[in-house]
């Protein structure tokens, strides 16, 4: 048996009471494409941080090519030959590709430029070295990150959920690159929770659950269902596909909404038209950073619309372009934002005070004073009805886990009895159990006649949840697809087609 390149033994990392990793053993062989599979919160990212030297383990040993090592910082990791591509890229948007590379890699700009071109040809990572990063697509930025790692000749490359930001066609390109690297003897650690991907590319898989290793398998030998069972410890919860229900009036209508942006890296919206009827769920597919944030802010009212657009946005048949979020909420509109901590909830405040944020009109304010009893009752009901795991209504919002906080926020918005509900990335970073509960609630709500609009990056979620879909790409929106007559590839094509300016 060959000696493993990297070998972890009994590695434990604690954050306060939480064991992010406990007694993890991991062997990565040279040239392997090794998957780290697990749900959100299973400890995948912590494990990678330990290997890359961002954190140090509390217990256990790490060996590199058979020699025990202390990886005290990312610089040490890089010297050993570990490269990491983060989920959220660490590139300076105002610099060019080669300038970004030169921050980490020694050499003159001219040398680096030719090496970037060379590596690009060798591994199918074509990117213009002199382009500014802000002008690059997400896929190209990821290539820049990978190239930057490859410049220093790594023996191990860590990719943290690399496909979550890519349209389907770019995923194939990435996989081809990874296979080429693997044949050159570079080991790859591939973090993901997407089972089919792992089965198609990885040679090994280590499965994490609750910080512990629950399996070491060859992914091709198992089907997705079996891997999922290992990953979540029970059978995959199944969601019945939404049945068709009677659709009512248009509760939300955008007709040609265009919004310019002051932010140099923002995406202007160009002529967005869509509508959501009572009793239907419309999904907005697409990769984040294509106008999702701007569209969400325009619909919620957080960004005031320009005067000539005031009539282009209607809710319940009424022009609302000039109304602020509170006034729109008053009409029967609820909104679950993408950012839970700091937008949907104030981390430093108790759950009771976070309820007042949007529910204050429901009898919680009298003559300018807060009625704390009312707010407390509302909070207790919200916690109980939505299975929010927390010590109580007095707990700070920031102390809840991501999934629990999202259940709380969605629960709060649902208790406002909206006729139009808008959610931005409703289950991002939420564990499968909670995500399924959330999706089930949304379908129930739709069946009761609520109009629901969902922006999501997660294609599986949109296919499970929505009646119709539209794709948002570079600030433009595609035609409407009927979900049950559409294949994921069609949506993928729309993501790319729109970006090339085709209609």
């Amino acid at each position, binding site marked *: 048996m060959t000696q493993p390149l990297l070998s972890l033994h009994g590695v434990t990392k604690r954050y306060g009471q939480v064991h992010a990793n406990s007694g993890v053993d991991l062997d990565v062989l040279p040239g392997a494409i090794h998957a780290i599979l697990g749900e959100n919160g299973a400890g995948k990212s912590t494990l990678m941080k330990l290997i890359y030297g961002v954190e140090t383990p509390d217990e256990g040993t790490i060996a590199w090519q058979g020699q025990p090592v202390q990886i005290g910082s990312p610089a040490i990791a890089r010297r050993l030959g570990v490269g990491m591509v983060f989920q959220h890229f660490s590139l300076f948007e105002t610099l060019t590709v080669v300038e970004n590379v030169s921050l980490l890699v020694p050499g003159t700009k001219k040398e680096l430029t030719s090496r970037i071109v060379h590596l690009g040809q060798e591994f199918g990572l074509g990117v213009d070295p002199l382009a500014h990063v802000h002008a690059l697509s997400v896929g190209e930025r990821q290539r820049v990150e990978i190239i930057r790692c490859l410049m220093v000749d790594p023996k191990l490359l860590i990719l943290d959920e690399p496909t979550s930001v890519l349209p389907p066609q770019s995923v194939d390109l990435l996989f081809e690159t990874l296979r080429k690297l693997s044949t050159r003897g570079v080991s790859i650690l591939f973090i993901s929770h997407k089972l089919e991907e792992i089965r198609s590319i990885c040679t090994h898989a280590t499965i994490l659950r609750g910080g512990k290793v629950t399996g070491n398998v060859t992914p091709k030998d198992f089907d997705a269902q079996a891997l999922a069972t290992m990953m979540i410890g029970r059978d995959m919860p199944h969601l019945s596909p939404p049945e068709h229900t009677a659709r009512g009036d248009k509760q939300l209508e955008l007709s040609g909404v265009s919004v310019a942006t002051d932010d140099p890296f923002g995406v202007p919206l160009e002529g967005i038209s869509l509508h959501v009827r009572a009793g239907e769920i419309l999904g907005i597919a697409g990769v984040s950073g294509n106008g999702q944030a701007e569209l969400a802010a325009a619909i919620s009212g957080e960004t005031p619309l320009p005067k000539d657009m005031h009539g282009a946005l209607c809710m319940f048949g009424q022009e609302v372009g000039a109304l*602020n979020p*509170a006034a729109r*909420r008053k009409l029967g509109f609820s909104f679950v934002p993408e950012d839970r901590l700091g*937008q949907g909830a*104030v981390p430093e405040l108790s759950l009771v005070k976070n309820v007042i*944020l*949007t529910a204050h009109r429901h009898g919680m304010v009298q003559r300018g004073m*807060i009625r704390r009893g009312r707010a407390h009752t509302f909070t207790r009901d919200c916690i109980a009805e939505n299975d929010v795991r927390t010590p109580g209504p007095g707990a700070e919002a920031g102390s809840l886990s991501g999934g629990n906080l999202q259940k709380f926020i969605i629960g709060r918005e649902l208790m406002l009895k909206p006729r139009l509900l808008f959610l931005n990335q409703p289950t991002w970073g939420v564990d499968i159990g909670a995500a399924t509960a959330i999706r089930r609630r949304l379908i129930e709500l739709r069946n009761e006649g609520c109009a629901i609009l969902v922006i999501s990056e997660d294609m599986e979620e949109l296919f499970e949840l929505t009646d119709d879909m539209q794709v948002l790409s570079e600030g433009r929106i595609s035609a409407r697809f009927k979900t049950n007559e559409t294949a994921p590839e069609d949506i993928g094509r729309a993501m790319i087609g729109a970006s090339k300016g085709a209609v």
Partner: protein
Amino acid sequence: MVFPKLIRRERASLPVLIAAPFLALAMAALSNLMLYAAIGVDPVAVFKAMLIDPFTSYFSFSEILLKAGPLLLIAQGLAIGFRAKVFNIGAEGQFILGAIFASAIPVYMPQATGVWIWPMMLVFGMLGGLAWSAITAFWRVRLNANEILVSLMLSFVAIQLLNYLLLGPWKDPMGFNFPQSVMFQLDALLPILLPGTRVNVSLILALLASLAAWFFVLRSFAGYRLEVGGLAPNAARYAGFSQSGAIWLSLLIGGAAAGLAGAAEVAGPVGQLQRSISTGYGYAAIIVAYLGGLHPIGIVFSAFLMATLYIGGDNAMVSAGLPIAAVSVFQGSLLLAYLIAVTFVRRKLVWPHRPTA
């Protein structure tokens, strides 16, 4: 070499929050006493003069109460803004404008009598402070001009305005050319609260204002909106709370409180408009507000502490030969020490330890 890291706590530490002002006071006192020793002043004598003597006589204790009034008023107003992250640093200017507005009544109507005069002066003072802070609010909302700079610079404008009035139109014609207004008539002076001292009804007003601040900050919906805006501006936008409304409200409350304090100063212990009314209350109140944890009850304590330091500092100058700058140095080091201590409410130091093999 292993350096400790500063790591965010999972939740705010209540013990540290309560201990912070005491730790700060201890650290500041210790470092300053060492400083006094270094410049050749007996630290024990200073300590006695500063922190013990003020409480040993009825009169000097009453002087503490007198000083605490304006500090308390201004700090309560400022703290409301600071909680909303609206940094009004120009309370000194708003204080001066309050004094000027209030003085307008006795200056233009020196013969007027009636019990309406001093309450009217207080109202005028509030309006003066309000107007001065409104300038800052307007430019912040209109042009996003930084309120720290605008309010601070307006304080210097206020001093020049005061100089102009006292050297020109408002100068007492019988005042031997001194830059001061006429002495105010009896009805333009605040009633004395404690007989035999200079403590007047403005102390009651300051305590009532503290009570009102408590209700506003902890119970009112407007206070809640300001708090959310300060802690998480995106959440305030999401909820639909107006940001410009928060800026206006924060600055106007701070300005009105400082203006009221300024009016109470000229209608109280000073009894006329003078250049020396600007003694830095507006800046000291910033320290008072933070030392009190921006909490209405904490501020009551910190205002009395700061007032003690003022009186004690005066004592130490006379009896222990402390230089005049020492009080300012002490105030500054107190704020610095508090800011250091309060860092640990939400953070803690962690020494990275080696993994056990």
